[in-house]
């Protein structure tokens, strides 16, 4: 399927998403507004992971850490009475970028299994850090004092407005991501994944590029964290739970790595599936677990591969 057709399908998908609030209002089902908004936030997080995992081949098992950093940046500022959204979200992005820089600088010197384990370990470290700070509720977390305020721009307490803001950010992230992966920078990242020895032989040292990608991905995920905490109105270290990281990875893989729309599809597939299963039984993970295993064993091309008939 040509890239033009892909773009059209994606545009249709986004239009459908835009139609959710009025449709939900029509059928008086605010639950779906909430659900889709939540899924879109995770789609943003998954899209950020897609840059380093899908395109870069870096199996970072600690990406949920940045949801936490971003969320805590907003929550902590709110706790101390700073409600200015611009300030909060700037800190969320900046702090996440900084944390990503530090973690990436150490982790990217390793590769393979070491890299996976180290990224996982660092996330857990942040998780324990979050738990141990009693001031912010320890492992219970705490309520968000107030949603981020963007005076004169948008009121996040307005469910519809918040929804469209998230949608707009998702579209922006996808668009910027698309430009990024096709830029010179993106080509180097993709080349380093495809054939590292060859990439060195032509004159690129992958490390600085990968580190930059890691930071960018962390920053965008931090933004997703800021959105998430505003969505849940609650701040908890569980944002950074490593199972969250695993879920994000599944969204990228299920959606189809190395495609812009993939993570969006993956987020919808996984979270809708979870929603569906949890409606049937409280033991839905009993079903989800094996389903995930089977999907890895048999379904590696991912949904984007099926829908867009694209080679992996």
């Amino acid at each position: 399927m040509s890239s033009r057709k892909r773009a059209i399908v994606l545009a249709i998908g986004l239009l459908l998403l835009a139609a959710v609030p009025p449709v939900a209002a029509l059928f008086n089902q605010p639950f779906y507004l909430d659900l889709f908004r939540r899924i879109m936030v995770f789609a943003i997080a998954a899209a950020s992971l897609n840059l380093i995992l899908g395109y870069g081949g870096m199996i970072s098992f600690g990406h949920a850490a940045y949801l936490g950093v971003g969320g805590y940046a907003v929550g902590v500022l709110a706790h101390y009475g700073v409600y200015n959204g611009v300030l909060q979200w700037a800190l969320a992005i900046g702090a996440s970028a900084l944390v990503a820089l530090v973690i990436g600088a150490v982790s990217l010197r390793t590769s393979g299994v070491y890299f996976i384990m180290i990224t996982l370990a660092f996330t857990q470290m942040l998780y324990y850090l979050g738990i141990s700070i009693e001031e912010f509720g320890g492992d219970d977390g705490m309520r968000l004092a107030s949603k981020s305020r963007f005076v004169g721009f948008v009121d996040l307490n307005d469910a519809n407005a918040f929804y469209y803001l998230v949608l707009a950010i998702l579209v922006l992230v996808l668009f910027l991501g698309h430009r990024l992966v096709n830029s010179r920078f993106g080509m180097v990242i993709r080349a380093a994944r495809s054939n590292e020895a060859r990439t060195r032989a032509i004159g690129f040292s992958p490390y600085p590029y990968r580190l930059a990608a890691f930071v960018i991905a962390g920053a965008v995920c931090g933004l997703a964290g800021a959105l998430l905490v505003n969505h849940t109105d609650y701040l908890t270290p569980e944002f950074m739970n490593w199972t969250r990281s695993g879920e994000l990875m599944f969204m990228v893989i299920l959606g189809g790595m190395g495609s812009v729309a993939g993570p969006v599809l993956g987020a919808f597939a996984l979270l809708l599936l979870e929603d569906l299963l949890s409606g049937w039984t409280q033991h839905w993970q009993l079903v989800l677990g094996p389903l995930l295993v089977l999907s890895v064993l048999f379904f590696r091309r991912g949904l984007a591969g099926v829908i867009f008939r694209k080679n992996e």
Partner: protein
Amino acid sequence: MNRNILEVRGLTKSFGALLASDNVELQVREGETHAIIGPNGAGKTTLIGQLAGELRPDRGEVRFAGEDITALSASERARKGLARSFQITSIYADFSALENVMLAVQAHAGHSFRFWRAAREERALRSAAQGVLEEVGLGARADTPGATLAHGEQRALEIAMALAGRPRLMLLDEPVAGMGAEETQRMIALLATLKGGKTIILVEHDMDVVFSLADRISVLVYGRIIASGTPAEIRANPEVRRAYLGEEVAA
């Protein structure tokens, strides 16, 4: 034009008890085509690895255009003008031939921390890459994915990627590996067009290739260079005959 562009002194590398490079001495003159031959297990791969920067020698030094590059990584050496092709084809299978070469061009065309403009649309990169593809005879196959190219075409792409950065020295590791007779002749013709303008170090098994292209030959046996000289000198060298060439030195 007659100075040494590459000088290797006392290069030594062991892997545990195995001495793979034993005090290797090598001088390659600028502009010449210098072949390195030797029986299997002589340590050619280890030597290439140390020249390209993938392996660190235990002792010794490598000087490139007078500069000591022993401590430089592979990517740093490539940026200084030392290009290489791989014995086992190592291209970007999922990129097209053009994209493969564009990447190699890109590495030498300014920095790559550019995040917005599509690399594919950079006319300078495209035309330079297309030009290199024409040089190696792959002009018509520009949009073919690397994995779909025939074996001989992939080997040509290897050469193209080494050429793309306009290198001062090309390190070619068995360029005709796995090729049939006809493809080998084509590759010889291609490499012949590169001679003179570029300095080429050619590691090869195929004596046709070696004797038709090499200006000078060095013979590597058990990690040591046992002889270095013109093809005629090498053919006549008794040590070489004993160690390696044997019956194969027909006329």
